[in-house]
């Protein structure tokens, strides 16, 4: 098996350097803080914060399904928006062809959006 190494799309090396710095900064800050700060935990301090009253139950109960619906609609429409970027970059070359293509694409999705609206999926009750 042969391996050829070309440059990757130019200009990502500075990002990796910056990433290394951006990761090491909070590490250094938190470790430095660990060396100089006091540490005196007590039973009361370590309780879950509930306005001074003892926690009545575990926090991880079940929550409303609305959050789930929002997330699933987000996934669906996010896939749609990612298609818009190559389209926008290529727009001048495509001309009227590009308009009609995306009008069909978005038209079908707008039908879905209106249906979801009518079904009440976008209500937050």
């Amino acid at each position, binding site marked *: 098996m042969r391996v050829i190494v*070309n440059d990757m799309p130019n200009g990502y090396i500075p990002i990796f350097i910056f990433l290394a710095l951006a990761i090491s900064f909070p590490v250094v800050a938190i470790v430095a803080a660990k060396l100089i700060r006091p540490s005196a935990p007590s039973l009361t301090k370590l309780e879950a914060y509930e306005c001074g009253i003892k926690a009545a139950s575990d926090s991880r109960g079940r929550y409303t399904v609305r959050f789930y619906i929002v997330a699933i609609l987000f996934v669906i429409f996010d896939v749609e928006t990612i298609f818009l970027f190559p389209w926008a970059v290529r727009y001048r070359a495509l001309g009227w062809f590009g308009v009609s293509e995306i009008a069909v694409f978005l038209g079908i999705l707008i039908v*879905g959006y209106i*249906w979801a609206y009518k079904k009440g999926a976008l209500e937050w009750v």
Partner: protein
Amino acid sequence: MDVILFLVFAIIAVVCAINVVVQSHPISSAVSLIGVMGSLAILYLLLGAEFIAAAQVIVYAGAVMVLFIFVIMLLNAGTEVRKGRSLMVQVLGVPLLIALLGVLAFFVQRLYPRSTVHFGGFRGGSALAIGRALFTTYLLPFEITSILILIAILGAIVLARKELE
């Protein structure tokens, strides 16, 4: 430099992938899966597909995994209960896995004996090139994608309708 980055992120991807299976708590598995998606994006980048890399992060790491995390948070899915394993699984599991990997590697090597791994050799990964391909050659699949997304909307809302009413 690229080879070092490739090795680093390939190792991260594999370790995270193993971690997805090994972890007993669903949220740890989901976080490991985010790690896999992120490292895969960087591997795409090293191969020269920059737009695909960004799309991988936005759609998989940023959207699909948010849904996973939400479901785990909402359902309060707890730690997986480990059942006792049968003797055969304990004894034969790992050797069989290694054997399977060996067979797979052997056949891949046989199928592509003179294959070349070409870092950065792919030049069609820019947004412009993808736009050109998507809106001329692959126009029909692109438009059908929108119907696929529409079906996904219908499915999601039908599934959730009982809760909505």
